[in-house]
């Protein structure tokens, strides 16, 4: 189960990317296609085998991990802007794309890079699990969790309103699924509090968050397609 979860998440994300190809070719909502392609790449790069292969090309000192961090920041910036706009959350949009949001992103990105290059990162290992665990590595990991969590918190109130509205049922279910994914993401902030025996929970929580968010987005796409079809038929 734990081993299958990353691949399942990857398959879902790739499928979501694929269904968007036709409309992306027609020039409609290309951002979403790009977002899902990026999300797929994120997931791919966080799975052991592809990670090791790509990191080997990049010199074998875990540069792939830094790359993944930056891709994730980009993913969440895109996701945050699109989702806040979708759910009509002015405050959320300002908190993500406004001066504060961009300052948070800039600071997180700069600190991430700085810590990475001050650490001894030799020895390719996915999630940097093979490196000597110390305070620097802890802060590096915490930064990586912080920005997605920040974006998620900005999005939650707007999505919750949609869940409780009288919108079409499928759209509400999809919004609730996305909401669940983002809540799980916020929960990952508590990783340092997990006892050592529960470390298996980390990947489960990470991938469940990604999977639920992706399924929620997919559900929104599906609800739109079905509504359009019904309107036409």
């Amino acid at each position, binding site marked *: 189960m734990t081993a299958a979860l990353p691949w399942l998440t990857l398959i879902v994300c790739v499928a979501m990317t694929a269904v968007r190809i036709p409309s992306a070719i027609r020039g409609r*909502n290309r951002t*979403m296609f790009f977002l899902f392609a990026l999300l797929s790449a994120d997931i791919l790069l966080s799975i052991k085998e592809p990670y090791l292969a790509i990191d080997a090309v990049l010199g074998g000192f875990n540069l792939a991990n830094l790359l993944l961090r930056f891709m994730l920041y980009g993913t969440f910036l895109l996701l945050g802007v*699109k*989702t806040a*706009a*979708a*759910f*009509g959350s002015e405050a959320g949009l300002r908190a993500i794309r406004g001066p504060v949001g961009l300052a948070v992103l800039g600071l997180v990105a700069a600190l991430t890079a700085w810590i990475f290059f001050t650490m001894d990162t030799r020895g390719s290992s996915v999630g940097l699990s093979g490196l000597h665990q110390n305070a620097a590595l802890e802060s590096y990991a915490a930064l990586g969790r912080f920005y997605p969590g920040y974006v998620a918190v900005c999005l939650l109130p707007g999505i919750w309103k*949609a869940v409780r*509205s*009288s*919108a*079409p049922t499928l*759209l509400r279910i999809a*919004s609730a699924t996305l909401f669940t994914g983002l809540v799980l993401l916020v929960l990952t902030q508590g990783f340092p509090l997990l006892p050592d025996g529960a470390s298996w929970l980390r990947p489960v929580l990470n991938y469940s968050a990604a999977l639920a968010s992706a399924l929620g*987005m997919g559900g*929104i*796409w599906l*609800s*739109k*397609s079905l*509504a359009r079809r019904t309107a036409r038929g």
Partner: protein
Amino acid sequence: MYPSRKSSMSIPSKAFQRWLHGVAPDVSTSDVCRVSGLKRTTLAQQLVRGKVAESSLVRISRALDVNPVSALSTFDSYADLRGTPVAPTDAELLSQVATMDLLRAVIARNDPGAPQDFELAAAPHDTSVRAWVEAIDDGGLRHRVSRATGIAPQNFSAHLTANKLPPELAVATAREAGVGPAGGLIASGLVSEEEAGWRRGARRAALDRLGTAELVSLAGERLQALGKTLHRQENERDRTERIWENLG
């Protein structure tokens, strides 16, 4: 025994099967579904769960040529419906005239050249539940209903907004208002006026009895309520469209 006021919705399966056996002893469940157009799986599911929906009972009664209101009245939770039908008040009758028909009536009063004898659309209409409740409310009705049935006032309001009223709540509302028990069943579309014993042409007669000033005020109130409903729907649609436009 008088039914418990907090009894759950719908009809117990056992009582339903006893009723069905009473009205159609030789008809199988699948025959019942075939003649009433009810999906077999739907009825089977309701029977297994132990509760049959009132709407199923109504469809089956119609198919078997049994008056649905009398059929309902045989169940303890609908004992209020037993006996001769209580005549509706004028306010109740008017509440079941569609807003557009009220507007037609306003025009007809003011313009002799306009159609005078237009056919009233059958109840229910787009805001018939709220209109019915407002027609029978003396100011404290919602409070009494919520105390008697245990429904939270905001849930009661939500039903009115959605133009829906669960049958048992409809009967309880009528009971608390002291009006005939079937009015809410008409307003929520479960049964027709004729089935509930409202005289043919009764709504028309009530409309004709209404003074012009009152008619215009009533139409005005309805228009305002309709405007609110449309606003809400449009806002909801805009919000949905924005989600689809950005993420779909």
